[in-house]
């Protein structure tokens, strides 16, 4: 019996020493699931070396993404304004924070961000990484209205999170950095690359209609849609250039966009080109969600352009309001755009609430 006790004590110390030794703990590495077109056409995804993807980190990040304890009053999670069914954006024009106040921009959808090689996130480019991006919604008074010390203390006091952080990062001590890293790992798994148009590009000629192909040709025609200069093409499956443009929405700016971040007047009124994937689920459109439908968006580029001194020269015929598409061209273009949507992305069980 005495021997048994000694063995038990020895085991206890052994287990303590192994779990406390954070430097030796290695969570389970995970490779991103890269769609075939992305694999063959794009540079490899940019995952930071100090935050590799791991099974435990992704699971923790997913749980945190759906965790209302991140907000000051425990009522709002990231997922409240980034809904899976809406391709991780908000169907409301502006999101409402915990105090009832509304923001001034439409929440951005979240997918394929691991291919944002420029590492400038958000409509105004103000976040330099997905980890960095986590800061603003947590601290913003009109969003989660919390403080990092409070977030850390709240999660640390729970019965489950310290162990999950230990599994993901080797320490039961929760930090601002480890929270951001976990959420970023989950967000990097949000990959959408299997729309009907992808299937067509992979060789399935029956995946799209003749109207959708015609819409693609309008998209690629400089004298009609001329969408491709900013929104990708069959060899850029991101369907965005991840750059910033003034797309002729206003003659003067209440929201300076990129210029508000850089301070450069030449950047006033510029916003990030969003991806055209999953438009079926991401209404309303534009940085301020001003357009409720895709028809309104297409009409804007066709007849609604407004001059301002930072307007991108890729916006043509500004004096006439734009591309002057015919009614049938507009319909075909819209059909093509919707062929880039992927319902399975919005219902993928791996992305849904685990709590």
């Amino acid at each position, binding site marked *: 019996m005495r021997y048994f006790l000694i063995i038990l004590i020895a085991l206890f110390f052994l287990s303590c020493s192994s779990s406390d030794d954070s430097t030796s703990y290695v969570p389970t590495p995970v490779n991103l699931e890269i769609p075939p077109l992305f694999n063959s*056409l*794009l*540079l490899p995804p940019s995952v930071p070396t100090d935050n590799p993807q791991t099974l435990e980190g992704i699971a923790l990040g997913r749980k945190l993404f759906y965790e209302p304890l991140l907000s000051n009053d425990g009522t709002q999670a990231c997922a409240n304004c980034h809904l899976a069914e809406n391709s991780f954006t908000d169907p409301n024009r502006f999101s409402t924070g915990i105090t009832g106040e509304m923001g001034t921009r439409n929440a951005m959808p979240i997918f394929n961000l691991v*291919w944002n*090689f420029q590492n400038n996130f958000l409509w105004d480019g103000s976040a330099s990484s997905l980890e960095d991006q986590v800061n603003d919604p947590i601290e913003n008074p009109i969003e989660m209205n919390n403080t990092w010390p409070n977030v850390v203390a709240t999660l640390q006091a729970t019965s489950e999170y310290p162990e999950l952080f230990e599994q993901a990062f080797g320490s039961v001590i929760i930090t601002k950095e480890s929270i951001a890293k976990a959420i970023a790992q989950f967000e990097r798994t949000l990959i959408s690359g299997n729309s009907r148009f992808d299937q067509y590009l992979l060789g399935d000629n029956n995946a799209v209609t003749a109207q959708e192909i015609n819409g693609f*040709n309008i998209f*690629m*025609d*400089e*004298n009609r849609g001329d969408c*491709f*200069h*900013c*929104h*990708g*093409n*069959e*060899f*850029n499956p*991101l369907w965005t*250039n991840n750059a910033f443009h003034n797309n002729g929405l206003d003659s003067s700016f209440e929201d300076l966009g990129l210029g508000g971040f850089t301070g450069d007047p*030449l950047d006033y009124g510029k916003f990030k080109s969003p991806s055209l994937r999953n438009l079926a689920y991401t209404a309303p459109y534009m940085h301020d969600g001003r357009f409720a439908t895709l028809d309104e968006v297409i009409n804007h580029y066709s007849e609604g352009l407004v*001059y301002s*001194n*930072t*307007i*991108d*020269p*890729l*916006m*043509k*015929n*500004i*004096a006439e309001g734009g591309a002057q598409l015919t009614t049938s061209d507009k319909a075909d273009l819209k059909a093509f755009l919707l062929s880039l949507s992927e319902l399975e992305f919005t219902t993928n069980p791996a992305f849904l609430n685990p709590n």
Partner: protein
Amino acid sequence: MKKIAFVLTLLIAFSACDSDDDNNAPQFLISVSHSHNWDGENVSSDDIGITEFTNENGEVLKITRLRYLISKIILTNSTGDEISIVGTNDYNLVDLSDNNTFNYATNIVVPPGTYTKISFVYGFNEEDNMDGAYEDLNSVTWNWPGMLGGGYHFMQFDGTYENPVIGDDPVFNYHNGTAKVSDGVFEQNFITVTAENLSINSNTVIDVKMNLAEWFKNPNTWDLNELNTGLMGNYTAQKRMNENGQSVFSVYLGD
């Protein structure tokens, strides 16, 4: 014992290599530099959206964006051997707004002496201009539409110009690439730029200069009021760009 003998043999082999190299003439490192001017006046990222330039036709314009592709820089020595000057890739997308794209080192070293020529391709030649073949260029949406011959843009030169009749500054998209003759019929549009009889006696910079004014000048005086946007599928415009482009670039070897 065997092991020591083996290590000694290796050491001797490597030192033999070393001494071989030492006996050769010195080798000089090659790097590449891009610069831009408007008839001799330096043009830099600071000029974007601010500086007014007057073209040959008298239009006052501002640059919003200037990106262009250079490929296949080749140095030919006196015996006719071609030395490919390669950086990260065999091509370079130069962006006037990004100084990091102007200069790059290579790992190419060459002996001193006289070289018969240095040449490069503006754009891609037919062999290299393959649809979707370059991941980094796809990632920045540099592709040229398939309906216009595919491959990649050679240049995107965008800006605004003054036109009192239209009012608010109208825009131009001076985009160059493969020329479409008719549906399914395309014509190559790249330009090979060459300088001859050069000597290398130290570490050397291949200096590629672009005179932006020449795009609007020689031999075709470019009228922005006629040719401003929608030029990618305009055969005449594409061929005029090619003609004017012949005098846009120059290449020098410098220290």
